[in-house]
């Protein structure tokens, strides 16, 4: 009927348009209006009016509305004394029979007047969890079907799994929506009466003030499991848990943790009365699980309700219908046979693939063994010395871990329930894949640049090396030979040291001259290696830098030794000068009677060394400073490596795309009761109801970059400690930070022990 009417209307409209040539006339009119400037005037008028509206009408309206609400609120709500008095009175009056009722309500329910049935979980008498509203069904029939368990004809196993997660409870009917005229009914906590309307976002719940119940309605947005959203009480961790303790083997950190544990123990003795948590308070974790399952449960309920409604129309097919259907499905049957054949071959293909992969994994394992091999347990392995070896080690370990990680991620598909454990795996796996892919993309760009401009880059490197590490150093040594900055140095010692370092430097310059023709080839090789990722050339550059500046390192060692010896001799001669000596056995300073000749010689030597000290110190300062500069340069390269290897790129992208996938806890927002009550249709006397909105907070950035800040903290603690600075001042060798502490961040996404190949085989075969 409706289509017929529509067709008639269209016909009439078309006829009128054609009969009176409406379009031509409209065009003419428009043309006329345009020529006489009507359009411009209209726009001007519109603009002036709208400016007037925006400037005056809207502000005045806003101000009036605000003032009105402010007046109202300040008289009614925001008067603390008033409220407190009320609270005290209310508390004393109603505390005898006050029952707290908690209702969890999903926010995306249909907002209309249609009657329906509330279905959900009843966690306890006064703790209710609404899953969904079912429209167009009979309440008692649904209740019976749910009770007898015959409701879920379809998808029984998945609903069983959901019940498992949500505390082994069957769904039941909790009440009705828009069911009846509520005014005279009594309030039953077992059967709620609620009302929804399109004017309000919030459900209205019938609960008269005589019932002695106070209500909390907690509204939540149900997370969509297909989009991998979920709520969680604790922030999800991006690092592997079993590595957490391993990374913290810094002495200071262990001490700090012990101190904190002591404090916690002390705090436990603080509280005088301990109020045991009620059942409701303990069930929060389960409620979060229920919230996570809401979406799935709703889907299953919808399907089953449709089945329930359509069940009576079902009948068997007649013979002719069957013939038609089999004729239709010939092609499908053929396809089915083909598919079966493919499925028959599939395990073989998979097995061959797994075997090939295991072979590669075994090769990687062998390489890793070489990289980790130590001559003696206390000596450094290859990967501890060279950044390149370290980089290879990380990539190979990642490669070895991927099959297992992939297996874990794939298993998650079968089990949506325990989201909190499985999603971090997913994020970690794709984060490492993304990082490697990114690394390779940047690496290809860098590599092609290096290959094309190999000679230029080599020339630049050669130039800088020569100017700063050889010529610059030589010039500074020359400068030190002629009273630097007016400092009076001992001329003979100065010339000796200057000549010594100068000769070695000249010899090193000769060697670099030999090397420099090969530099373009080396750069070319580095360029080719960068197709394995941009981190590779950076690591290689870092190694190249340490090889090409090895002379500075040796100068530093030599000058530091001389300086340190001299300082310690001065120290002991100073004690001799005072008539004391160090008692090594008792570790203290004793008085000692020296002979006159001993004292004379000692004092002479002491004065001599004091006068020679500035000369040695000047050289030590020079080489220590250049050594520091190189260390800082290498640290910058290492930071680049850390960013390329461990940057939480995937997590950041997820945070931008859909922050619900990275939950960092939950938060509540109390809704304004006046605002909530405005939209309600039924006006009746109600007990106090608090509307609270439950939201998921996204993981804060500080938690994502926690490991970076931890690493920075460790570096700061190590290199800015008094011990290191005193070592630097006295010329002792600065103790390097333990490599495991430095690289714990990079390994935090990998397990400490590599799985055996047999385990991998078994897990992949499954």
């Amino acid at each position, binding site marked *: 009927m409706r289509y017929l009417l529509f067709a008639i209307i269209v016909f009439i409209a078309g006829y009128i348009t054609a009969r009176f040539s409406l379009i031509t006339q409209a065009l003419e009119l428009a043309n006329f209006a345009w020529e006489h400037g009507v359009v411009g005037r209209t726009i001007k008028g519109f603009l002036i009016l709208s400016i007037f509206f925006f400037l005056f009408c809207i*502000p005045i309206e806003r*101000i009036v509305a*605000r*003032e009105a609400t*402010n007046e109202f609120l*300040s008289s009614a*709500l*925001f008067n*603390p004394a008033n*409220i*407190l008095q*009320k*609270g005290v009175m*209310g*508390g004393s009056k*109603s*505390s*005898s029979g*006050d029952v*707290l009722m*908690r209702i969890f309500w999903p926010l995306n329910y249909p907002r209309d007047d249609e009657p329906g049935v509330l279905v959900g979980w009843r966690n306890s008498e006064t703790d209710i969890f609404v899953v969904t509203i079912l429209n167009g069904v009979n309440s008692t029939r649904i209740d019976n079907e749910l009770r007898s368990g015959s409701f879920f004809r379809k998808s029984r196993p998945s609903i069983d799994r959901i019940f498992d997660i949500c505390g082994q409870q069957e769904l039941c009917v909790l009440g009705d929506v828009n069911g009846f005229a509520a005014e005279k009914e009594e309030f039953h906590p077992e059967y709620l009466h609620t009302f929804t309307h399109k004017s309000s976002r919030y459900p209205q719940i019938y609960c008269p003030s005589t019932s002695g119940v*106070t*209500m*909390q309605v*907690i509204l939540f947005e149900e997370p969509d499991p297909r989009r991998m959203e979920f709520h969680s*009480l604790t922030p999800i961790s991006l690092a592997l848990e079993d590595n957490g303790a391993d990374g913290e083997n810094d002495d200071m950190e262990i001490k700090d943790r012990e101190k*904190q*544990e002591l*404090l*916690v123990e002390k*705090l*436990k003795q*603080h*509280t005088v009365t301990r*109020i045991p*948590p*009620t059942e*409701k*308070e*303990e069930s*929060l974790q389960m409620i979060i699980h229920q919230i996570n399952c809401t979406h799935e449960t709703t889907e299953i309920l919808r399907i089953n309700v449709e089945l329930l409604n359509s069940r009576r129309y079902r009948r068997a097919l007649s013979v002719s219908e069957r013939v038609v259907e089999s004729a239709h499905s010939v092609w499908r049957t053929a396809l089915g046979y083909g598919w079966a054949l493919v499925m028959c071959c599939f395990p073989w293909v998979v097995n061959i693939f797994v075997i090939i992969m295991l072979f590669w994994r075994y090769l990687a394992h062998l390489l890793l063994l070489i990289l980790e091999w130590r001559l003696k347990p206390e000596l450094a392995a290859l990967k501890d010395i060279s950044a390149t070896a370290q980089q290879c080690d990380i990539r190979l370990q990642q490669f070895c871990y991927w099959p297992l990680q992939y297996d874990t991620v794939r298993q998650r598909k079968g089990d949506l329930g325990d989201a909190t454990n499985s999603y971090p795996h997913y994020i970690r796996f794709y984060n490492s894949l993304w990082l490697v892919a990114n690394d390779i993309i940047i690496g290809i760009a860098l590599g092609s640049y290096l290959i094309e401009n190999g000679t230029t880059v080599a020339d630049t490197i050669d130039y800088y090396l020569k100017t700063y590490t050889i010529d610059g150093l030589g010039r500074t040594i020359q400068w030190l030979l002629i009273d630097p900055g007016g400092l009076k140095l001992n001329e003979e010692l100065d010339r000796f040291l200057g000549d010594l370092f100068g000769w070695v430097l000249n010899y090193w310059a000769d060697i670099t001259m030999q090397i420099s023709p090969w530099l373009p080839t080396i750069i070319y090789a580095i360029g080719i290696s960068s197709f394995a990722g941009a981190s590779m050339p950076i690591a290689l550059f870092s190694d190249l830098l340490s090889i090409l500046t090895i002379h500075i390192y040796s100068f530093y060692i030599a000058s530091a030794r001389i300086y340190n010896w001299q300082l310690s001799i001065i120290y002991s001669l100073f004690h001799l000068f005072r008539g004391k000596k160090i008692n090594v056995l008792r570790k203290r300073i004793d008085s000692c009677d020296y002979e006159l000749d001993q004292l004379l010689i000692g004092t002479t030597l002491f004065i001599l060394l004091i006068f020679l000290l500035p000369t040695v110190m000047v050289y030590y300062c020079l080489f220590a400073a250049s050594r520091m500069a190189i260390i800082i340069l290498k640290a910058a390269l290492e930071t680049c490596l850390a960013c390329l290897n461990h940057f939480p790129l995937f997590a950041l992208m997820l945070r931008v795309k859909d922050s619900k996938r990275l939950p960092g*806890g*939950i*938060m*509540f927002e*109390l*809704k*304004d*009761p006046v605002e909530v009550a405005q939209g309600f249709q039924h006006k009746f006397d109600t*007990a*106090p*109801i*608090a*509307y*609270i909105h439950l939201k998921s*907070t996204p993981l804060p950035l500080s938690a994502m970059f926690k490991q970076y800040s931890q690493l920075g903290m460790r570096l700061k603690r190590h290199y800015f400690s008094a011990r290191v600075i005193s070592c630097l001042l006295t010329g002792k060798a600065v103790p390097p930070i333990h490599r495991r502490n430095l690289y714990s961040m990079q390994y935090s996404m990998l397990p400490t022990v590599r799985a055996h190949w047999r385990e991998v085989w078994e897990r992949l075969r499954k």
Partner: protein
Amino acid sequence: MFTHPPTLQIRTPSPTTTEFIVTTRPPPSLSRTIVSVVVGSLRLVAFLTITTLLLSQHRLIPPWAALLQRDERLDPKWLYPISATVLWIIAQRSYTEESLLVIRSLGVQTSTTAGTLIGMGRKTRFIQTEKVRDVVINEGFYGMEVRFYLAVLVEGEAALSVVFPTLLPGRRICEQVWRGTRRCLYQGEKTKS
């Protein structure tokens, strides 16, 4: 003119749910509304000016607004720092608001507006009732003075979780909030047991 000594506002839709808000926002009045409108329009004008300057510096002004294009470029040494400072000042919030939401049977939630970005910087922390060991008022050194503060003792954590950490309202407000919190969290249970 823009801020006010910290005042306490309490919202209790039901005796089991209370929100305590401590804010330096002045109480609503006509003069404040006018001031906020003026400040808001000044902010908008400053933001538009800075954007136009920056766009015209890089010749990025779209063709329909070619009037705004300046021919000579400004000295980048001054332009960038000044525009960054102005943008930072624009983004400042004129008041601080901190709140404590107490929900019986769920827990307590502290929240703080971090003073920089409008709308974005709200830090919340929710503590389940299970984890709440106690709510206390304590004294602590704060710069050169001793201040009272309200804190939540959390199970298994060494650090106190301070409520209203930036405003640190006086003892009177702390006491009021403390009484309200304890009543809201525990009173029902006491009478039951």
